[in-house]
């Protein structure tokens, strides 16, 4: 019974481990090369960022935002063109782009939240609208970005003089040690706090076991980063977004409202919560993150064209559902969808390293998504309804 509960709780984590080990073996260990592990994060940065925003949309009742891939293109296009004029400081360009993303979000949030246009249709329209606008702004060309400081803000590596001059980028590993230590200290403190107040807590073995596994992974990963180019700046952006969204969804009243709307919208409304505003904010935040992803993508690739961000929405949506968000809304967590996003990322990366044909990569991804959701629905059906 206990192992069963464990497996149920950590299904996706276990799946991630299995898939990771599988690809590590299939690629003859190449997946574990520092460069590949570093790229795993960089190539999936946009998925991790957008999945956070998508989670809020999905929480409100399984609603999705189809327009995010196009928003990536539009915002990236504007950034590239503004930088190409060479008249504005990169910081100003970034601010303009983020402001624009918010405006796109307000546009969609208004129609969905206040006018009650079904999100699927509204964002489908946005998908065409923003893609078209983006292409028009690019003039159907590929626009390269050469502004060094812009690239540095998103796509460089952290180099601490003195520490990171040699082969090994020690700053990465030191950061890893600090994070691991903080996690450990935090666990000890929270247990002490609970003990003092006399709250029920899980057994020390399982809690410390969990934290030791996480710490080991952090140390392993930062060691690998240290052996490559150090900590990518993009990782900091991703980390910031993930931490903020994890905090909002799990600790704040505002975050609670998204779960409430997805759980029972009418009851939420009668509890005095402005449900229109909840929808509005879900789509506004989604577009903001899509815009940020546009900047991350533009900086990573170094150019923007009409196909930038194509089908990104599917990656973000897929991560959420693989990561355990309910297709009916009301449940899902940021850590969960991170596991989902990384799982998708490992599969992508692994298949690329093996050199699997692109067409077959789609087939595999589709199958993984379906299996994950089937598993979710079936296991909830079995345990959720009895009694």
């Amino acid at each position, binding site marked *: 019974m206990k192992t069963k509960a464990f497996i149920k709780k950590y299904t996706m984590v276990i799946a991630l481990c299995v898939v990771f080990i599988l690809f590590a073996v299939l690629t003859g260990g190449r997946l574990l090369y520092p460069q590949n592990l570093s790229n795993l994060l960089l190539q999936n940065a946009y998925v991790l960022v957008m999945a956070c925003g998508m989670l809020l949309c999905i929480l409100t009742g399984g609603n999705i935002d189809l327009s995010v891939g196009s928003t990536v293109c539009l915002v990236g296009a504007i950034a590239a063109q503004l930088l190409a004029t060479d008249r504005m400081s990169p910081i100003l360009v970034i601010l303009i782009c983020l402001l624009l993303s918010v405006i796109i979000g307000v546009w969609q949030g208004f129609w969905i939240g206040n006018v009650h246009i079904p999100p699927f249709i509204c964002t489908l329209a946005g998908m065409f609208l923003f893609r078209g606008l983006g292409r028009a702004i690019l003039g159907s060309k590929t626009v390269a970005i050469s502004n060094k400081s812009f690239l540095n803000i998103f796509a460089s590596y952290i180099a601490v003089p003195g520490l990171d001059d040699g082969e090994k980028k020690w700053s990465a590993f030191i950061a890893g040690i600090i994070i691991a230590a903080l996690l450990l200290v935090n666990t000890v403190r929270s247990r002490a706090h609970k003990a003092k107040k006399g709250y029920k807590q899980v057994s020390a073995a399982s809690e410390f076991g969990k934290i030791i596994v996480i710490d080991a992974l952090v140390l392993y990963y930062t060691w690998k980063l240290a052996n490559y180019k150090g900590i990518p700046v993009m990782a900091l952006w991703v980390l910031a977004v993930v931490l903020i969204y994890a905090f909002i969804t799990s600790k704040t*009243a505002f975050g609670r409202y998204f*779960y409430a709307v997805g*759980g029972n919208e009418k*009851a939420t*409304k*009668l509890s*005095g*919560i402005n449900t229109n505003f909840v929808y509005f904010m879900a789509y506004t935040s989604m577009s903001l993150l899509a815009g940020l992803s546009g900047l991350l993508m533009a900086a990573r690739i170094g150019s923007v064209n009409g196909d930038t961000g194509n089908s990104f929405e599917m990656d973000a949506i897929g991560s959420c559902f693989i990561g355990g968000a309910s297709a009916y809304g009301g449940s899902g967590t940021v850590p969960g969808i991170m596991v989902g996003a990384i799982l998708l990322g490992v599969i992508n990366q692994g298949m690329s390293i093996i050199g699997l044909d692109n067409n077959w990569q789609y087939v595999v991804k589709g199958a993984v998504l379906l299996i994950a959701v089937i598993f979710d629905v079936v296991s909830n059906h079995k345990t959720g309804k009895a009694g």
Partner: protein
Amino acid sequence: MADLILEMKNITKEFPGVKALDNVNLKVERGEIHALVGENGAGKSTLMNVLSGTYPYGTYTGDIVYNGKVCQFKTLHDSETEGIVIIHQELALIPELSIGENMFLGNERKGKFGIDWDRTYHEAETHMRQVGLKEEATTLIKDIGTGKQQLVEIAKALSKQVKLLILDEPTSSLNEEDAKMLLDLLLHFKQEGMTSIIISHKLNEISYVADKITVIRDGATIETIDNSERNINEARIIQGMVGRELSDRYPAREHKISDQIGMEVRNWTVHHPLYTEKKVVDGVSFNVHRGEIVGFSGLQGAGRTELAMSIFGRSYGADISGEVLIDGKPQTLKTARDAIEAGLAYVTEDRKGNGLILTESIAKNTTMARLEKVCNNGIIDVDKENAVAEEYKDKLRTKTPSVQQNVGNLSGGNQQKVLLSKWMFADPEVLILDEPTRGIDVGAKYEIYCIMNDLVAQGKSVVMISSEMPELLGMCDRIYVMNEGRLVAEMPAAEATQEKIMAAILQSDKK
């Protein structure tokens, strides 16, 4: 030897962690109306689901002997083929389809090419006449009332050549008139030889209609009472259900009504949200003092819920006019938030649809209407939230292993307590309780009444909307009667009787 149509022998059904049925025995004679009573969660519905094949053969132990042979139903379809039809509390009709289409859904009358619509509607109307339903078979379900929908369900059962009809709480959403009609219909079918099993919380109905009454408590059969002489009173049934005598169904209360008026509503008019020319509430004025329980009686559709919801931050209706004063101060309540902040609470009649988030924990539901009370700068203090939920759990004696339990796993009575906790936590001065005891058992009802008494003892005002007249007479200080959107009578509860209330409604109809 009696002619048994059905015998369920030693039925035991377990869910993970719970034994829902423990060696239950049930004998039903051909041509009788057999009532199944028990508190919520006693196992009545589970037993019927075993019988109908919703819980397939193999998931329970024991035998079902139907018409003399042991049956092993694997699906609902298997039992329906044998003439066993179950009508659930929540009706299974599709609003956007016509009566005829609903009646033959999954059982279509086929012609040479697809569905034979002429035959469908003809047969549908034949069965509709049998249940006394005077509608066109092409009328959409959403256009007829709940009472008539219930009749459609019965007509649908007839179309399946029903031999044994099972009704789960058939009258819980009907007003007294429609309920009476339904029960008489059952008596009529009994004359024609049909057997029915009826599950109900309304004991007066049971003593009126049932020949035998089987009491189930905690998953076991307690006794079967013979009511063929119609001599069993409600007290006798309750004694079996709760295992003790419940001498007084309404707790006593000191009537300490303050002169201060808690809420006053003047000339309140509400129009229908879709058909905006139609007045749903028409010029209603009423008040409730501090420390007073005021009742609203009336038939289904009298406009009581609409009145309450429109006052509560315009949560219903269009083109609303009138004044609301709370503690003598005029209020403009444009949203539910405004209403909550003004000290008003509306406890909905539809706890699953409008009241609770079934997939969330008791703790999260409890704090929902006033989440800011457990927050620091928008950050939820989970410890405080849990402490609050525990406090209300103890205060209202909600039966649950933990406040982390999902509300969906609780019985109706306990869900109602969570809903009350939620609104008590919002700390209102005026509470509007809409059908606060609908679909919950006698014991839980009593506890809800006690909570109401506590609230008024604290000087709060309570408005109680109920379709059960005895409950209004037992609990209220004053009773308002509504009919078709208008207030037609006001009377002190001490002088009120069921007859007087009905007379007020009928007289206003004539005008």
